């Protein structure tokens, strides 16, 4: 469904993403992991049309979408969330979610109903009529997720929606993401919470310093030497093995 080839982007002297390849088959949950600053968010932004890549191609269902503005990509069925949450601060939580709902549901009553249901389902029930600015960090993360889900994407890009959640909340969210896939959506996510990655992902890609260094099933990745080194520093794998 999503095919990324040779995607690159630099910011001044920083090569944030260096020619990565990535495939997300329809119906799959794919995780993109890597240490802080690896280039995950930048990759998402480039895929979803928010930053223009310096080179490379992004195909959605076979169509090259490089250069498309984000709203066109969203209309084509790919919706992203923001790691640094971006609420519509002056609108209520329900109104926030309703903006997403309007993408597929132009009737306002139906959109409102959908937004309130989804908000309640994601544990925002008590907050629906309060301004989004009043939410806690965890609440904002859920709002990001709720808004994106309300847009009924075919391909959902989740950028660290579980960061800052309690273990119970992580479990709830994992179940929720499974449910979304169960309803036919494809998911690409980044996450530092490994428990969630292991529980969800069919396939894992690992980035470090802008490059794709490994890919495989969660099980394969867990024992991959390059991955351990990327996270813990050079020689770590050997030290662990020795230790």
């Amino acid at each position, binding site marked *: 469904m999503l095919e990324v080839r040779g995607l690159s982007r630099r910011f001044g002297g920083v090569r944030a993403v260096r020619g990565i390849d990535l495939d997300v088959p329809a119906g799959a949950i794919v995780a993109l992991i890597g240490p802080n600053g690896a280039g995950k968010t930048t990759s998402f932004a480039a895929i979803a049309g928010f930053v223009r890549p310096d080179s490379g191609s992004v195909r959605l269902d076979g169509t090259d979408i490089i250069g498309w503005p*984000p709203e066109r990509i969203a209309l084509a069925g790919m919706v992203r969330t923001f790691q640094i949450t*971006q609420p519509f601060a*002056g609108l209520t939580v329900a109104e926030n979610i309703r903006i997403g709902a*309007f*993408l597929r549901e132009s009737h306002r009553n139906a959109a409102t109903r959908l937004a309130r249901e989804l908000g309640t389902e994601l544990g925002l029930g008590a907050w629906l009529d309060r301004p989004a600015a009043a939410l806690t960090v965890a609440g904002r993360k859920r709002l990001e997720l709720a808004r*994106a889900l309300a847009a009924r994407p075919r391909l959902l890009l989740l950028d660290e929606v579980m960061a800052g959640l309690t273990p119970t909340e992580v479990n709830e969210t994992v179940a929720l993401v499974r449910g979304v896939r169960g309803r036919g959506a494809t998911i690409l996510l980044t996450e530092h919470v490994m428990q969630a990655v292991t529980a969800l992902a069919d396939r894992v890609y690992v980035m470090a310093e802008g490059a794709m260094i490994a890919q495989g099933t969660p099980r394969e990745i867990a024992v991959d030497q390059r991955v351990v080194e990327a996270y813990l520093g050079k020689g770590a794998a050997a030290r662990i093995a020795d230790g």
Partner: protein
Amino acid sequence: MTRGLWIALATLALLPFASHSQFVANLAMLTAISAALGQAWNIAGGFGGLTSFGHVAFFGLGAYADAILQTRYGFTPWLGLPAAALLGGGVGWLMGLATFRAGLRGSYFALVTLAFAEAFRILANSIGITGGGSGILVKLHTSAGNFQFADRRAGYAAALALLALATFAARRLAVGRFGAYLMAVRENEDAARALGVRAVRVKSAALALSGALTALGGVLYVQSYLYIDPPTAFSVERSVEMLLVAMIGGAGTVAGPLLGALAVHAIADTTRSLVATPGVAPMLYGVVLLLIIGFLPGGIARFVTRPAHA
């Protein structure tokens, strides 16, 4: 509470018809035009957060469209209404596309609208079809067919009709999808685009709607005063008044501009009856604007209506 407010406003709006005083009717007409223009500004500036310092550009275009069509081409002034709306809307749309595509926001947008209004003023001042600096005089000939009324109450009715139209438009924004998109773009453009909102289009459409309504205000002006010249048509003071009415009343609320127009006219008329020196009343507007920004960012509407997020 909100319902009570609307009933009170509607009653207040009908009162001048009961009076036979042309003075009262004139006052009511001016207030209604201020409210209508403030509401027009509010559609772009309040709901869309598109702070314009040059909205008078649309007012002047509408006024000239109406004046030119009837004096130079002999059309009925009733045609001035759709013509002005079309021109104001078209220019608003194009201005929006040009500025929003270029990524102008906030202060830059405010300044660019001011520059557009100034460019139009200079143009009107120097070309032939507008009569240049001497302006256009419309012949006095009161009749309904001529959209000129001897009784000021008829002029007031026309102003109320425009106010009702603008308020209806604002009301639709407050509840519908387009308005929700507009407010989403105001609050966070990137987040809105991620959810499929075509931000440039939404903002341009809001500016077009706002421009069309403002241009209609220009037509009403010409039909009441039967004269237009560049400094009146494109005065910075009118741009500021539109903004002021919306900000004082409560930008981004449906009732705000109505309350704002009442407040601004109350300030102006009381001051003028106390001190004759020109400048005192507008100076107070500025002070009130500063106070509102500093202490009551939601405007008067915050007092009168229940806050939406209680």
